[in-house]
């Protein structure tokens, strides 16, 4: 293809035209673009409505994790110390978020929907140790919330991994 005299002018027009368009920039710290509901962010452990933990310490999530970043140490529930709804509960439940690849296999693996991946992605830390999330942190409500796009439109009616149990 031979160079034509008009060709560079077209290029100049392209760059010039952009000045009069509104930039596509989304100014992040002030405006947070809603993530899609399927976006996999920070993990969350769930409780039943009666306060008991959903996790029964079966370690399926640990088995499913490709990065081996979940550690579950189960213990038996006793009548005076009932933590979970099942026979056992997770005495220690830790996720090393600095290893986690957020593939979501843990929530697929969990038969009780005890662990899900939320939508929070603001997880930077000054220290690597702070990224080891313990059970208390995972059970707690995340501090930094992010907006989520309409789940009705952008997700299947009942997400594949979330059912009622």
């Amino acid at each position, binding site marked *: 293809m031979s160079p034509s005299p008009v060709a560079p002018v077209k*290029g100049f027009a392209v*760059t010039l035209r*952009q000045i009069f368009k509104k930039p596509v920039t989304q100014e992040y710290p002030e405006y947070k673009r809603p993530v899609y509901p399927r976006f996999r962010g920070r993990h969350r452990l769930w409780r039943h409505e009666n306060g008991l933990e959903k996790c029964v310490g079966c370690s399926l999530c640990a088995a499913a994790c490709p990065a081996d970043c979940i550690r579950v140490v189960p213990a038996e529930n006793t009548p005076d110390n009932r933590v979970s709804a099942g026979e056992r509960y997770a005495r220690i439940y830790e996720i090393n978020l600095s290893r986690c690849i957020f593939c979501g296999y843990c929530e697929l693996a969990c038969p009780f929907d005890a662990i899900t991946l939320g939508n929070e992605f603001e997880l930077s830390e000054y220290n690597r140790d702070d990224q080891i999330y313990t059970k208390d942190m995972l059970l707690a409500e995340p501090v930094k919330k992010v907006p989520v796009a309409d789940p009705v439109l952008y997700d299947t009616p009942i997400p594949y991994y979330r059912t009622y149990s």
Partner: protein
Amino acid sequence: MREPWWITIIKAFVIINLVMVAFAYTTWLERKLLGRMQNRYGPNRAGPKGLLQPIADLVKLVRKEAFQPDSVENGFVYIIAPIISMFTALAAFSVIPFGAGWHLWHWHIDGQILNVPIALILVFALGSIGIYGFIVGGWVSDSKFSLLGSMRTCAQLVSYEVSLSLAVLGVVIMGRSLSLVDIVHRQDETIWFAAPQLVGLLVFFIAGTAETSRAPFDLPEADTELVAGYHTEYSGMRWGLFQTSEYINMITLSALTVTLFFAGWHGPWAPLGPLWFFLKLFICVSIFIWLKATLPRLRYDQLMRFGWKVLLPVATVNAVVTAALVVAFQ
């Protein structure tokens, strides 16, 4: 009555600061304008609209560790190189007129620091000295990329210097003077030289782009090829000086374009004086930025070929034809 020496010094001080501010806001303008051309905002956090961005850059660069690689044998040259570039870049501005001059009390104050009869030659001479800063700085850094960068600088800037000076020959012939003030006056009396000297303008602008190593001729510091070219090993404010001198060169060149081809401080209407000058300067600098946003970079040998085989003949013919016409119509 001519102005006394101390006014000149005050003027020099004012203008140096003005140029520095202009430099600072040229970088800001470049970043903003590039941003808008690329669908984004550009700096807007440091101060309103990012107006404090250059200040932040400056403070940061000053606070950055000043450093000299161990392998540098001649530390003096390493330090002096950016200073040479900076000094000459600033000095060249001394002859650029940005106003007609004013009557203040009982003195006539010129619109430039010095009205030298050979101003144009002075600008080119200073520019040529400034190149040494780049060349020497790259050479003394003792880094291969720096060396390649300064080799490129050397070849590119020397070759385009020729076309650059030949391109203004037409203007000089028509203006019948080497003094920038006279040339501006002449344009005001007759016509802006951009019209009769269109070819000269184009050659001047292109050669000037190359001379200031702006895109698409930014080979000496093409960072995707040579990491950072001649200033690879420079950091902090020394690097800042190189950068400053490059931008000031660009401003000087824009100012020269405005002076030589667009009648300096004269406007088509409304005698606004320096405002016209700055407006034209702004447009000229924006065009530089626009070029950067649009064009890919030339290759080294293509650059050389273009300089010697296209620009130089065109500039020569332009000068000869202008001379012939001027003689013929006299």
